[in-house]
C-alpha cells in the first residue's frame, strides 16, 4: 500500500515546536523504511512556501526540500490528473485554497495512491476514493 504524505507531516517532522513533531517524524520514517511513502511536487512547493513564511531563508529551505526529495519518491501530475480534478470540481463545493487540497488528492489518486497521511483530516474526509492513513 502506498501512502501520500501531506505537507503538514513534512513540516511537523522538521518543526520541533509542534506537538506532533516526534510522532510525524517517526511515522514518516517508518513509512519510508517500508517503501510506502510517496510525496508530490505540490507538497514540496508548499513546504518551501511554509518554511519561508515562517522565517527560513530560501537557501535553507532548498536543503530541506532536497532532503525529502532524496528520501521519498516524488509523484508528478499526469494527463489524467487534470481531467480528474475537473470532474470532481463539478460536484464539489470547495473554493479558494481548498481546491489545492483536491488537487493534491487527485494527483495521488491518478497515480494509483489511495491513502493520505495528514494532520488536516477534516479537509480530506469527503474526497471519495481517498482514505486517511492511521498508524497501527
Amino acid at each position: 500500500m502506498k501512502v501520500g504524505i501531506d505537507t503538514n507531516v513534512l513540516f511537523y517532522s522538521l518543526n520541533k515546536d509542534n506537538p506532533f513533531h516526534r510522532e510525524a517524524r517517526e511515522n514518516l520514517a517508518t513509512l519510508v523504511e517500508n517503501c510506502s511513502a510517496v510525496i508530490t511536487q505540490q507538497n514540496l512547493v508548499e513546504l518551501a512556501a511554509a518554511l519561508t513564511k515562517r522565517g527560513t531563508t530560501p537557501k535553507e529551505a532548498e536543503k530541506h526540500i532536497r532532503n525529502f526529495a532524496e528520501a521519498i519518491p516524488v509523484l508528478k501530475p499526469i494527463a489524467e490528473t487534470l481531467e480528474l480534478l475537473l470532474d470532481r470540481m463539478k460536484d464539489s463545493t470547495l473554493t479558494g485554497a481548498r481546491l489545492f487540497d483536491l488537487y493534491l488528492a487527485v494527483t495521488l489518486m491518478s497515480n494509483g495512491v489511495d491513502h493520505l497521511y495528514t494532520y488536516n483530516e477534516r479537509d480530506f474526509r469527503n474526497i471519495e476514493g481517498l482514505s486517511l492513513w492511521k498508524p497501527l
Partner: protein
Amino acid sequence: MGMVVKSVRVKEEIWENLRRLSKEENRPLAQLLNEALEKYLIEKGGKKAAEKIRRLPELSLGNEPLSREEIYEGRY
C-alpha cells in the same frame, strides 16, 4: 501506483528462471518482478532513506498548526 513499461537487460538465466517460476505459480511475470524489486528496495534503500528522515535537522518554526490556507492565502 501506476505501471510503466521499461527496457532493461537481464541475464538470460535469470529471465528463464523467472518465466519458469511464473508458469509454476501461475502468476504474471510483472507481478513476480515487482515483488522482487520491492523487497530489494526495502532491504537496500528503505532503511537508508528512513535513517535520513530520522536525522533531519530540527527547526524552531512556532507551534501554530499549518494549513493550506496559510500557504496559499496572503501569499506575500
